[in-house]
């Protein structure tokens, strides 16, 4: 079986293949880029320190225009746009590091910058023609123009393919006419350039619509609704967009007409890493606040930091952040190394990033207790700001399903090949032998993790064993459910969570191995300890997940939910 069976670390893992060459050595930025980024971060920190008041942004529900223009002057709007189009051409790792810093300083600003370049202009970067790039990127790079990404509609949130906004080709074939509306579009109130997804086929029941992506200038007639009032990230702009006979020249089709869904998915794949990176930064801010607080606050004659239950929270946070950071920079490094398919990795980073941040925000607020709940202190705002990440850029439910189904589709195809090979023995011989080899591998012995440092051998074995579990569970559920796997969400959730933990462990192992190789056991003590805690937590989860595959109450839960829908409420009252 060829090593590059899948151009994705996680997809290969679903086949039982541990693509170590994608893990080791753990990626890092070039020294040039590291220096550039650290100089930039210095400017960013000082700029924020002198000019940005997050509590005020939250209260005023807006980012002051001077702040926005200061961010533009710092060159923060064109981070990944190539130099020939006026940007800084940063690598994905460097971009992530900058977004991490911004995420640690202010969530509304991080979301605004992310909507602009993680998703808003990303379509032009990934799919734009040279003309489109020359026309749009230079002004987007300086921030003279701001971008937004407009996919969601009232009837099309998670189900992006359900968009109703219609784009009709004019009789002369020179432009499309857009009609419809979008909701909850970040930067919607002021963006100048929109990546808009619209239907270019008639709405037919049961038929997949053809979506097309367009670059739409506000000046073409895009109208914005009023600002929404939100739980958090209140300084960011979130509005409806209205398209009423908006004429868009055919030259502004992004990618191929009818292939808009793919554009949307690719943009989001790459955007999700920016979100994960911002989450790392916010986690770091929170954990610093928590550490300060527990060393300051006294109860029962001691600093509360002295109590076991508080230490436990702090240690858990550190281990989770370490894993998240390792996963995010591993995924970013894979992109920089030219790996084309990082969709699973970035979806995992988004889920883990948003959920780690939510738990770190929650625990930090808990540690602060009474003051944590008060608006005079920053904790409650950080909690509110953190919440959005589990919802946008793909809800975590949708992304779990995606990780599982996309991960299992490779093995699924292989199984289909076997079935076909049985029916057509001669034609299918090649397929069968390929599968047989693969199968033999998983039976004869699991793939090995050979490049981890010996100090981490216990963790490496755990990784190998559970990779074996992932493969056999995948095969078992595919055999059992066949195509119906698409409907089996309980199974999907378990498979996704096994995959998430495996990616987390792999990333920690690769990074900690590098740390040990460079600094020795004592020098890498912190990394080793956090890896050990994270792997321990993952191990307990994995054990439960694997057990639940066999023994669960899935059917009962489904039935209870269905009955509750009929009852329309919680059914009891003690009266």
């Amino acid at each position, binding site marked *: 079986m060829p090593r590059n069976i899948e151009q994705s670390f996680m997809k290969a893992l679903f086949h039982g293949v541990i693509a170590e060459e994608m893990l080791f050595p753990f990626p890092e930025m070039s020294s*040039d880029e590291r*220096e*550039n980024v*650290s*100089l*930039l971060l*210095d*400017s960013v920190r*000082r*700029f924020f320190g*002198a000019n940005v008041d997050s509590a005020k942004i939250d209260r005023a529900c807006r980012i002051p225009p001077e702040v926005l223009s200061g961010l533009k*002057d*710092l*060159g*923060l709007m064109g*981070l990944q746009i190539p*130099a020939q189009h006026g940007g*800084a051409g940063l690598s994905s790792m460097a971009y992530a590091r900058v977004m991490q810093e911004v995420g640690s300083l202010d969530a509304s600003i991080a979301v605004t910058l992310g909507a602009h370049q993680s998703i808003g202009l990303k379509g032009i970067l990934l799919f734009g023609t040279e003309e489109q790039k020359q026309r749009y990127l230079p002004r987007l790079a300086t921030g003279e123009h701001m971008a937004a990404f407009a996919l969601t509609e009232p009837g099309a949130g998670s189900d992006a393919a359900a968009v109703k906004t219609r784009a009709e080709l004019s009789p002369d074939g020179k432009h499309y006419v857009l009609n419809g509306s979008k909701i909850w579009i970040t930067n919607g109130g002021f963006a100048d350039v929109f990546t808009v997804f619209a239907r270019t086929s008639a709405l037919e029941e049961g038929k997949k619509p053809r979506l097309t992506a367009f670059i739409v200038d506000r000046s073409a007639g895009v109208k914005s609704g009023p600002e929404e009032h939100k739980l958090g990230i209140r300084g960011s702009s979130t509005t409806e967009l209205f398209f009423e006979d908006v004429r868009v020249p055919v030259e502004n089709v992004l990618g191929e007409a009818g292939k808009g869904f793919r554009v949307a998915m690719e943009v989001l794949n790459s955007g999700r890493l920016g979100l994960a990176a911002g989450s790392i930064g916010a986690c770091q801010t929170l954990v610093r606040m928590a550490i300060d607080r527990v060393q300051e606050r006294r109860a029962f004659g001691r600093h509360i930091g002295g109590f076991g239950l508080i230490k436990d929270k702090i240690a858990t946070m550190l281990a989770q952040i370490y894993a998240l950071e390792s996963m995010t920079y591993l995924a970013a490094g894979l992109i920089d190394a030219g790996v084309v398919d990082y969709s699973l990795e970035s979806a995992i980073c988004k889920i883990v990033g948003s959920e780690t941040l939510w738990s770190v925000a929650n625990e930090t607020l808990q540690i602060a207790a009474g003051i944590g709940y008060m608006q005079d202190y920053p904790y409650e705002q950080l909690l509110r700001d953190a919440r959005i990440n589990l919802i946008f850029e793909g809800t975590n439910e949708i992304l779990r399903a995606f990780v599982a189904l996309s991960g299992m589709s490779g093995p699924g195809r292989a199984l289909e090949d076997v079935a076909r090979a049985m029916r057509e023995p001669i034609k299918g011989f090649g397929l069968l032998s390929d599968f047989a080899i693969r199968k033999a591998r998983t039976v004869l012995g699991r793939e090995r993790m050979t490049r981890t440092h010996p100090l981490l051998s216990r963790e490496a074995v755990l990784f190998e064993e559970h990779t074996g579990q992932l493969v056999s569970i995948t095969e078992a559920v595919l055999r059992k459910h066949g195509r119906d796997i698409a409907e089996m969400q309980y199974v999907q959730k378990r498979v996704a969570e096994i995959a998430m933990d495996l990616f987390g462990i792999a990333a920690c192992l690769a990074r900690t191995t590098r740390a040990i190789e460079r600094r020795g056991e004592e020098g890498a003590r912190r990394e080793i300890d956090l890896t050990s805690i994270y792997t321990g937590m993952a191990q307990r989860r994995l054990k439960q997940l694997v057990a639940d595959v066999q023994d669960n109450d899935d059917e009962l839960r489904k039935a209870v939910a269905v009955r509750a829908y009929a009852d329309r409420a919680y059914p009891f009252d003690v009266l």
Partner: protein
Amino acid sequence: MKILVALKRVADPDNANKVKIPPSGDRIDTAGLEWKPNPFDEYALEAALRLTEDGKAPKARAGEVVVVTFGPKETEQTLRAALATGADRAIRVDVTDDKLDGALVARALKALVEREKPDVVLMGKQAVDGDSNQVGQSLAELLDWPMATFAATIQEEQGALLVGREVDGGVAVLRVRLPAVVTVDLRIVAPTSVYSLKTARTHKYNDGVRFAALPAIMASKKKPLAEVKLADLTADSGLKVQYHGFEPPPARKAGIKVKDVADLVARLKNEAKVL
């Protein structure tokens, strides 16, 4: 106008609690310290940039700003930051801090000034690590140039600088003919502190120093950064100041709360004996 700015890298004073002294007491342990440019030197750089531009178009430099530091290879990061904020060229004199004192730095700078021939040497009034406050004055003496210390404002005139210094009870204004040495104080980075001949008097700068933008950071890679050996600047590398030992300051004693003003006065009189 050509300006030479001296820039020192110092241990971040906000993390002064990280300064450690080994039991031998013969040195300061610099491992684990965070480094940053001496704030007053950054103000000097900001003043130099303001003096060599039209405040309305700060990207175009009228004249030349050369920054120099004394330090090991790692201090090049400090110089690059300076280049990224607008300086044209940088020079690193290769030497470590423990081999320097104020007089030696002044001697080396004198040689450098003779090579570079700037119209003005600008520097911070002091470095926040040693707080010696010597180099500017010594350099002016060695060069036999006019000097103005603790500048709070600078206005460029034809062939001279008008320097405002905050003194007890007011502002003393000096006109120094060029070439000259000027050391700057905190207020030099206020919005209306520095005016070149090109900048309109109505112009207001942002308060504080400017921050390097990403495009400038990347472009700064192409700006010249030269390394010079200390021995090439001065044959005499002897030190006038010798350190005989280091010890940490005594730990602060816990404070007390006083009942009222009368209690405060009584304690100041009887316990502190300051009244």
